[in-house]
């Protein structure tokens, strides 16, 4: 079987507001899949729906051949979730958090202890086992949440914005943890609004904006879709302009025509793709306000 998650036409409404608007997602077994989108795009809501925390208004989700709405319990046994914020109790220790979670999953105490030690060793959490949640910095809270989520040995790990609010060190540490667990066989579904994170970590990416998937592919495919080469330069009105090209020659040719305007020729980043497809914020209206001419 190729796809471990197959979601079709997912819709979620909060009252009149459509937070997720017909999303299709297909995730291959063993890959790191990224849902990339700005704040408010519907990433968290999508994760909540995919992980059965919320029932979709419409649509169908199949996880490892199990329809989540038909056999929710079985579907849940195959997923682990790390939510966007703390995702652990702050007033008990790391160890107590992990054991409580294992007990909820009906894992025998002895097995749970062995698994806890093994997971904690793998990511260097062991020295912190007896610290309380509120004594930990963000990265260690996330580590705890990840171990909690992995106690029942799920096939898929969902991480909702795992590095938002973390410092650079913790961010890179977390990327490594994601890679470690991915190597050990878990399929990873993560959301992020960081382009570099998606680029560095994910095998495939879907870009989401205003509740809709705009494009899906590997980072390379997405970059190629608008052109592998980028020339950026100053336009007449002072703004930075971007042009994309499929081969080096045409990029070079264009580069020469704008040589007076501080041009830079470079490879296309995911950020360019994202901005091209979701639209850059236009500052013209803002300028009008500043000039008092609008």
């Amino acid at each position: 079987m190729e796809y471990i998650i197959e979601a079709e036409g997912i819709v979620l409404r909060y009252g009149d507001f459509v937070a997720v608007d017909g999303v299709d997602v297909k995730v291959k077994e063993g890959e790191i899949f990224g849902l990339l989108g700005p704040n408010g795009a519907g990433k968290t809501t999508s994760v909540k729906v995919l992980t059965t925390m919320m029932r979709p208004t419409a649509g169908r989700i199949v996880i490892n051949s199990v329809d989540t709405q038909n056999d929710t319990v079985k579907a849940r046994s195959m997923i682990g979730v790390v939510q966007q914020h703390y995702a652990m109790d702050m007033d008990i220790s790391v160890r107590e958090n992990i054991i409580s979670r294992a007990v909820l999953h009906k894992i025998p105490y002895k097995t749970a202890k062995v698994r806890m030690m093994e997971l904690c060793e793998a990511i260097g959490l062991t020295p912190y086992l007896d610290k309380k949640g509120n004594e930990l910095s963000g990265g260690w809270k996330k580590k705890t949440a990840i171990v909690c989520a992995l106690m029942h040995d799920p096939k898929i790990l969902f991480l909702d914005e795992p590095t938002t609010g973390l410092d650079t060190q913790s961010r890179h540490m977390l990327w490594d943890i994601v890679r470690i667990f991915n190597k050990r066989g878990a399929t990873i579904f993560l959301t992020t609004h960081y382009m570099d994170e998606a680029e560095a970590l994910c095998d495939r990416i879907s870009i989401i904006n205003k509740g809709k998937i705009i494009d899906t592919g590997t980072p390379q495919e997405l970059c190629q879709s608008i052109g592998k080469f980028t020339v950026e330069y100053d336009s007449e009105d002072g703004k930075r302009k971007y042009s994309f090209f499929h081969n080096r020659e045409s990029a070079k040719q264009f580069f020469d025509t704008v040589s007076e305007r501080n041009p830079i020729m470079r490879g296309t980043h995911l950020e360019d793709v994202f901005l091209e497809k979701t639209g850059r914020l236009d500052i013209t209206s803002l300028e009008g306000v500043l000039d008092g001419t609008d």
Partner: protein
Amino acid sequence: MGLIDETFRVALSDLYYFKRNIIILTLTSLVTPLLYMLAFGFGVGSSVEEMDGVSYIAFIIPGVVAINTMTSSFSTISHKLMVQKRFYESFDEMLLCPVSKSALILGKCILGVLKGSICGVILLALGYLMTSDLIISPQLFGMMILSCLIFSLLGVAAGVVLPDLAWTDLFNSFVILPMTFLCGTMFSLSSVPQIVADIIWVLPLTHTSACIRAIALGRDFPWISFVVLMIYGTFFFILSWLALNRNK
């Protein structure tokens, strides 16, 4: 058996929390009932000869114990659940675990029952030292634990139904606090106007207070109150169950 097993699985993280903070949690819960005992028992009590045929202190101690079953169970549970739901996000993850909704509801009550019962035992012990009119019996403890459970269920219902902490505070101020004073805990309902008494009669604490007092003072057990309490308990349970149904 499955239900009891799952209930304690759900309660484990709360029990860890209780174990860590047992002294602080118990002492904080005892402050309010102790103040009532002091202020009403000795302050008011010195000018009130007797109420309902017993010394005032013997009258209010069961009332204060009833109040304690409500305040220490309800506020702990509703507050903790709301924090786990809104801030720690651990409640959502609990919903994903393979335990039944009933076990979730009952498991979340355990902390309240435990804390309310421990405080209740301390209050009864103090009361026993202050007056010889109280009858301490197994039934009294049973009734106390039962009413802790009922108010814990109310706490769970509030925690899962209300959207955030502002609402639990509101509920505390407009429902819980008035009940504390009005439900025949500190004064006999025979002295208030009929219409007011009728309204008060509807509230659950009135019945908790009546049941606990009847047992503590060796009077006829008010079975109607007992039935009303059971109905309340069932109602709170169903309310929580329906609220959880939305996402579990």
